[in-house]
Every structure is written in C-alpha cells, then in structure tokens.
C-alpha cells in the first residue's frame, strides 16, 4: 500500500480571532488529483498554503511523503506551487526562471541545463528559453510556471487557481493538458479552484469546503449526485431542495410533507424512517420532466415561469412555486423548444422518486 502523499490531521489556522481553517483532516494518495472547491473565503487557499509551509498551523499536524512537516519552513519542503498570477521572476529570462528551484541543490550546471530543457519540453514551450518574461503571453507564462515547478521532479505539486488569469478558451485547453500531464508524470496534484466545472473535469476526488471546514470528500460523481449536506447540495450542480416531515407511508414508500405539497421519496432499504422524521431531499434540475415530454411521474409540482438562463446549449428554466421558492429545470435547448412557455405561464413538472436523493441525516 503506497504511503499517502499528504496527510492533514485536524489542522486549524487562526488569524487573530478568525478561524480560517477549522479542523481539516484529509489524506491525499500518491498520484492522486485532488481539487478543493468552495466559495470565496472558505479556507481552501489557506489550506494549500499550509501544505506549502507559507502559513504555520495553529494546531494539528501535516505530513508530506511520510515525514512530519507541520513546522517545517517552506524551503525545507518539496512542494512547488503553481501560482494564479504566475509569480515568474521578471528580472530573469525563461531558462533562469525554470532553473531557479535547482539552484539550492548540489547539481552541476550541465545536469541543471538538461533538466530545464526537459521541463520546457514537457510543458510544450522548448523554444522560449531565452525570452524575457515580459515578452510572454498569459498562456506561455503559465506553462513556464508549471515547468519551473516540475523541474525538481517533485512528488507533490500545489496549484492555486493556476488557470484563473487565462481567458476562457485557453482555460479549457489547459485543463485537459494539465490532466494529461498529471496522468503521465504520476505526480500528486493538489488543486484549488473556484471554478466547479474545472474541478469536476480534472480531479479524481473533490474536497468541498465552507467556512473553514470540509463538508464533503468524494469522487466528482459522488459529490455531484450524492451531496453530503445541504450546503454541498446548494453549492454543487443545479439542485432543487425540499425539506419536510414524514407524514405517512404510501404503498410505494414514505411520503414527506413539504411547503409545496407531499412528495414520495425513495430510500435505501438499510435506512428506516418513521413518521415525524425530518427529511431533506433534492431533485437535480436535469432529472425533471414536463407534461410536454410525455407522462408525468409521481412527484409533481406546479409553478409560474419567472425566467430563463441560457448557458450555451443548456437552458435553465426558473419556476416560482406557490410558497415563493424557485424551482429549476434544465434541458437541452432543443428539448426546451418543445415546451411552449412564456413568462408567467404555469408549468407542471414532475420527477420519479428514485431520481431524487435524500440527504443523509447528520
């Protein structure tokens, strides 16, 4: 069993009276691509900086590659970082920037030059060696930044919103390149981003953080379809969330009484609910059907169309339910065209109880 690359054990970081990181525990495996997501200020960047040694934890332990590094200085660790603003040294050319991490090691000049050339080749910019940093484009700068981090053959690479300064097209291209690079080199990547789709596209596991705590760790699919709590359900994906109490047992299963009517839920056999239990469940916007598409399912709700959001080929329709909450349905543009709705029209939507997900009771 390979040793974990990075282990965080109950790490806390306080800045004055503010707890930016409140008891974070995580084991990142060798060769894994782990992405941290969460709203601004959730502590993801602070956690990354703690791993890098740029902050010292107030309590808890951090071990990297099997060695305890809780209080080690940043230069004593081998955790090179790729920065959002590139952090390239403007007074050095590309080759000397990439070489920087090797200068404190006892490696002779010829070997250093070889490593630099190799790193530049890996990231696809071998011809830029003699250029000044000011002559590079954003994408080129980011590649040089990655080369600089890779040149010491690290086992762990830290990435702090590395694609944040790039334009959208380049971002998407770099995502697949980064993923391929990670797979090819087998390096452990710890990646922080506020862009959810980026994290889902690249990571083996996602860590969802909020207010300094980890809310969920899981594969992209798990986090997306089986959120562990209400925060994750609201933060990830497009979900409609209902809460209520179990009011009765229908022959098909338990019925939850909510502000928008009673709904059938489906629960795994191992879990039991009784009348009076408080239940929260979600139905993803893309698992909802309308009467225009065929027969309606068991769970139905009616709302007034109050808006539409158009993101490329996916259209999100917003309905206002009788208690004022917003219900979202998502369809491909083509499917949406078959639903003749105007603002203010009433629309009945439905879903199969098996497509809904009941949040685990804490």
């Amino acid at each position: 069993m390979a040793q974990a690359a990075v282990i965080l054990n109950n790490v806390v970081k306080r800045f004055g009276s503010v707890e930016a990181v409140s008891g974070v525990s995580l084991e990142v495996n060798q060769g894994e691509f782990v992405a941290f997501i969460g709203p601004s200020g959730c502590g993801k960047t602070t956690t990354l900086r703690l791993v890098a040694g740029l902050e010292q934890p107030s309590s808890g332990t951090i071990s990297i590659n099997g060695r305890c590094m809780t209080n080690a200085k940043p230069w004593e660790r081998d955790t090179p970082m790729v920065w959002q603003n590139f952090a390239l040294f403007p007074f050095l050319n590309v080759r000397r920037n990439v070489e920087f991490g090797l200068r404190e090691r006892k490696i002779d000049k010829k070997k250093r030059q070889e490593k630099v050339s190799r790193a530049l080749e890996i990231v696809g910019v071998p011809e830029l060696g003699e250029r000044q940093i000011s002559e590079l484009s954003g994408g080129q700068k980011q590649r040089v930044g990655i080369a600089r981090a890779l040149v010491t053959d690290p086992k762990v690479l830290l990435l702090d919103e590395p694609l944040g300064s790039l334009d959208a097209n380049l971002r998407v291209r770099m995502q697949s390149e980064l993923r391929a690079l990670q797979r090819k080199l087998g390096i452990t990547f710890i990646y922080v981003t506020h862009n959810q789709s980026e994290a889902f596209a690249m990571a083996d596991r996602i860590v969802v953080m909020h207010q300094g705590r980890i809310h969920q760790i899981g594969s992209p699919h798990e986090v997306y379809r089986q959120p562990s709590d209400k925060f994750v359900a609201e933060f990830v994906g497009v979900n409609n969330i209902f809460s209520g109490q179990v009011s009765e047992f229908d022959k098909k299963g338990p019925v939850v009484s909510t502000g928008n009517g009673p709904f059938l839920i489906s629960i795994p056999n191992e879990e039991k609910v009784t009348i009076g239990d408080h239940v929260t469940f979600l139905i993803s916007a893309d698992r909802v059907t309308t009467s225009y598409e065929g027969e309606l399912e068991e769970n139905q709700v009616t709302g007034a169309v109050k808006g539409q959001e158009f993101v490329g080929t996916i259209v999100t329709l917003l309905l206002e339910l009788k208690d004022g909450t917003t219900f979202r349905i998502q369809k491909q543009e083509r499917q949406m065209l078959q639903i003749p709705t105007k603002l203010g029209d009433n629309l009945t939507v439905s879903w199969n109880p098996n497509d809904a997900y009941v949040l685990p009771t804490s």
Partner: protein
Amino acid sequence: MDRLINLALKAYAVCAFVFIFLPVLTLIVFSFHLDRYPSLIWKGPGLVWYKEVLNDPAIVEAFKNSLVVALSVGILSTFFGGTAAYFVNRWDFRGKHIYLALTLMPPTTPLIVLGLSLLVFLSLIHLSGTLFSIVFGHVVFCSPFAMALIRLRLTELDRTLEEAAWNLGHGEWRTIARVVLPQLVSAIGAALLITMALSFDEFIVAWFVSALDVTLPVKIYAMMGGNVSTKLNAVGSMVFAISILLVILAQILWMIQPGQRSAFDNGRRLG
C-alpha cells in the same frame, strides 16, 4: 471660469519657477560673459572664466573633496537607508512609529540646527574639522531620503515573488539576495544619485563641521568674502549643472521597473 483658473494657476507656476531659476539663469549666462563685471551689454560667449576656475588649485582641491564626500555619502546613506527601509517594510515591532518619526527628523530639522549640533557633537568626540566630519553630517541628513526612496519601491514589489522563491527551496537570506535585491537595483541606483546630489550641493552642515579641508560650496562662500570674482559664476554654473544632472539621472533610473530593459520600455510585447 474653470479655464481661467487653470490658466492663472499655470501662469503662477511659471512665475514661481522663473523666480527661483532666474538668478541661476543669470549666473549661467554671465559665466560665459567676457567682461569682468556683468553689464547690460552681454559680450560673449567665452570660456575664459571656466579656464580660470580649472586653473585655480584651491577650487580644484575643493571640487575633488566634494566628489569624494558625495560618493562616500551616497554609498553609506544608501546602505543605511536601504537596510532601514527593508526592516521597516517587512517587520512590525514595538515603537515602530517612534522609530519612523525619528527617521523623519533629519530632513525636517533646519540645517543650521543640524550643522551646529553636529559641530558640538563631533568636537566632543574629537572628530570635527575633517572631511570625515562632513561625510558624517551628510549621512545623517541624507539617509532618510535613501530610506524613503527604497521604501517606496519595496511597497511596489510583488510579495508573491518572495513566497515563490521560498517555495522553490530558497531560504530567507538567499531570497533577499536573489529576488529582492535584483528588483531594487534601479531604486538603489536612484537613491545613490539623489544622496550624492544632496551632498554635493550642501553648504551649511559642511561649513559648520569642516576646517581646512572644505567642499566646493564652502569654498564658494569663502570666495564671496573677498572680491566678487567672476570665477564664481563659472563655479556656480558647474555645481548647478552637476547637481541637476545627478537628479535627472536618478529620475531616469527610478523609472526602470524590475524586469524592464530601459526606462523607456513599457513592456508591451506580442505574445
């Protein structure tokens, strides 16, 4: 109405500059005048007074002293001011505001007060009356200027570059040497030139603490005691030219951002 006010302000500024520089301009114009005394009919131009200045051993001696003092002051002030700037910029410590207030004192203290107190102090420790005394006095007066310049550039620096250096295995001192200093080069150069200009130009403190070995401004003052020689115009013009040149060079150096090749390169390239 706005345009009128604008125009009036500009006119005022021009008048102020004329008021300040007219004497200097007169000095320069008449340094090329061929007659011994300035008159309304200007005869010239001629370099006769400049030749006399360069042939006067006392003046040349004083000029050499000024250069030695200015260079020493430049190097020492920049060193003291620079290291102080780094400490103040990077660390918080108790009494920091008191420290900062103290560093503001030399430039805000009247030079006569500074000169007199330095004379008293240096006499007490038997160090007055030499060129070293002048260097000492000027370093006290000039270091805050070097400190201010380098402090300003430090606040403009990108701190993540230092974090990146630590992250890539370089310790604190190595990082200062390899990442901070290279970015400060133009600011250090500017500080050096400014403090040299300040020292080269400075009269009162030098006059108070010097004895036989004097700097050029003090020599000029001594010359004025005797007959008003037309050589003064030439010397004065030379001092003015050197000071202005140093300041202009300092300004050009200052404009070079870390990573730029020259002051006129705005870094725009196609990528």
